[in-house]
């Protein structure tokens, strides 16, 4: 009996590694497609040659200055938003929680817009916009959390409604700022729709470390999140300082959302549908759920970016339109399914 149990644990470990390898291959393939497609088609061998410094000047410029940074932005933003979704779903014990649905993206967008349009900042320099986004993202999170909580529980309906209401409020404020802004800030409209136009390396230099910090912050508490999903009571009995962990993970989720929103605007539904799909494949254990979600979330956004560039070629659609077109129907499907069965 014990041997059986040990065997099945080993088998699962093996299966988990296999899933990570497969997801990595899919991600790399998507990145390759993202780099190769466009006005200038680049073959696999040409891409390899360019990456090791043997390419033509045209390919050099196309890959290093345009397509690779754009793909990398999709990778990091996709991973960040997905992990933020995973963290929030665990803390709220609710598969519907995500940065977009709960209004965090709008809150972060308002912070960022204040900095961009009104020049209101807390610190100067290149981090001024992300810091404002982070602060307002966290404030939004606290507001939604406190509205939704009653008697120590967070009912799903209240949570969603609180998120929608607070999100709508901040969206309206962002629209107001946009309206007040001069024509020179036309870019802000695109940014509101979720857009990978701001993909230069100078932006990536900021997005990448913030995203890595945020993801590590959530992954660090994988075991605790597992236990906390069973209920605070269970987690306390297993020696977890529940309130500390919750606060830190929420901070990490706010950081991830703020980092993404500051540069690419509001890209919805990534943090909702990817964790849910991945959970169906690998189960709820965060030690495998988080790495798998990182790979799947990155892949999803890279693919959405390819679609957004190809659909009305040569025009480039804001990527937020694509993720919403895919994500909203999935969200509705989730809502309908919830009625029939309990659990995720």
């Amino acid at each position, binding site marked *: 009996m014990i041997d059986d*149990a040990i065997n099945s*644990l080993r088998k699962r470990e093996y299966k988990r590694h296999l899933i990570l390898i497969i997801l990595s291959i899919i991600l790399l393939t998507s990145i390759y497609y993202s780099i190769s497609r466009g006005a200038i088609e680049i073959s696999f061998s040409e891409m390899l040659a360019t990456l090791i410094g043997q390419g033509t000047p045209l390919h050099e410029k196309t890959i290093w200055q345009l397509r690779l940074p754009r793909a990398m932005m999709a990778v990091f933003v996709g991973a960040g938003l997905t992990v933020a979704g995973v963290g929030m779903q665990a803390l709220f014990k609710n598969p519907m929680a995500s940065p977009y649905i709960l209004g965090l993206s709008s809150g972060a967008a308002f912070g960022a817009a204040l900095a961009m349009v009104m020049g209101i900042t807390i610190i100067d320099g290149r981090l001024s916009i992300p810091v404002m986004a982070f602060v307002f993202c966290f404030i939004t999170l606290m507001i939604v959390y406190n509205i939704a909580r009653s008697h120590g529980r967070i009912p799903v309906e209240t949570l969603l409604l609180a998120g929608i209401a607070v999100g709508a409020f901040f969206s309206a404020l962002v629209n107001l700022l946009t309206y007040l802004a001069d024509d020179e800030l036309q870019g802000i409209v695109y940014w509101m729709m979720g857009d990978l136009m701001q993909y230069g390396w100078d932006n990536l230099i900021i997005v990448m470390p913030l995203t890595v910090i945020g993801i590590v912050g959530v992954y660090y508490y994988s*075991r605790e999140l597992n236990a906390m999903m*069973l209920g605070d009571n269970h987690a306390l*009995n297993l020696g977890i300082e529940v309130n500390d962990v919750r606060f830190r993970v929420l901070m990490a989720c706010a950081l991830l959302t703020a980092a993404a929103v500051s540069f690419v605007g509001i890209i919805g539904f990534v943090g909702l549908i990817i964790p849910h799909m991945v959970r169906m494949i690998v189960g709820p254990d965060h030690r495998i759920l988080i790495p798998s979600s990182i790979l799947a979330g990155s892949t999803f956004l890279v693919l959405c970016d390819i679609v957004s560039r190809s659909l009305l070629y040569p025009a480039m659609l804001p990527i937020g339109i694509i993720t919403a077109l895919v994500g909203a129907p999935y969200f509705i499907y989730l809502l309908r399914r919830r009625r029939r069965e309990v659990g995720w």
Partner: protein
Amino acid sequence: MVEILKVNDVSFDYSGSIVIEDISFSVPPGEVLGILGPNGCGKTTLLKILNRNIKSPTGDVSIEGQGITDMSKRDIAQKIAVVPQNNEISFSFTVTDIVMMGRMPNLERFQNESEEDLRIVFDSMEKTNIIGFADRFINQLSGGERQRVIIARALAQQPKILLMDEPTLHLDVNHQLEVLDLVHDLSRDEGLTVVLVSHDLSLVARYCDKVILIHDHNILAAGDVKEVLTDENMRKVFKIEAHLDYDERIKGHTVTIVKPCR
């Protein structure tokens, strides 16, 4: 140091309405202590104070002479395991996953479970007779099966003290006896100290070495089963006419409930 658990003058109120007041007792190692009282008398609250899930505004609790306010939650979880009353879990963790969580207080961050940890986990699962469904999902089990999984997780913590809140509430009679026999054996053979909270007179009478009877937020009586479960005390606390006997067949006490008192 004689006591493994010492409770001194703890109390608790929910926004002004008193739940328990001035409770003091101590437990020597290897004892099975039953805390008995009617539903809603504050037993669960008392249990939560013992491992600092909630804090008593007065008094103190110490484990092996060390005050729990000086200990981290992790330190406490290395000594005390809890089997709570409500074990609804709606996520598809496997039974092994859940029991493995019992090793958490003893694992460093990012440290993987060692062979030794696995042995402890599967050992606990064998003791509670759940190894046969190690791979099943916790949210697909019956209440009784789930209860045994949580007990296995508590044992996997290798605690000095096991706290159980209405341990038999969701169990069929045969599983009630299995679980309590197991707990009884662990206390006798391995020196595990058990504090169980229950409103079930017969169960406490049969399995506990000592009993504390709670009435009106306070300890009404404490001591051996025979001294505490007198006809008068049972009438006062439970409003029943009942009688305690020693039964040679089970080598323990039984309670015969005659009728409710008016």
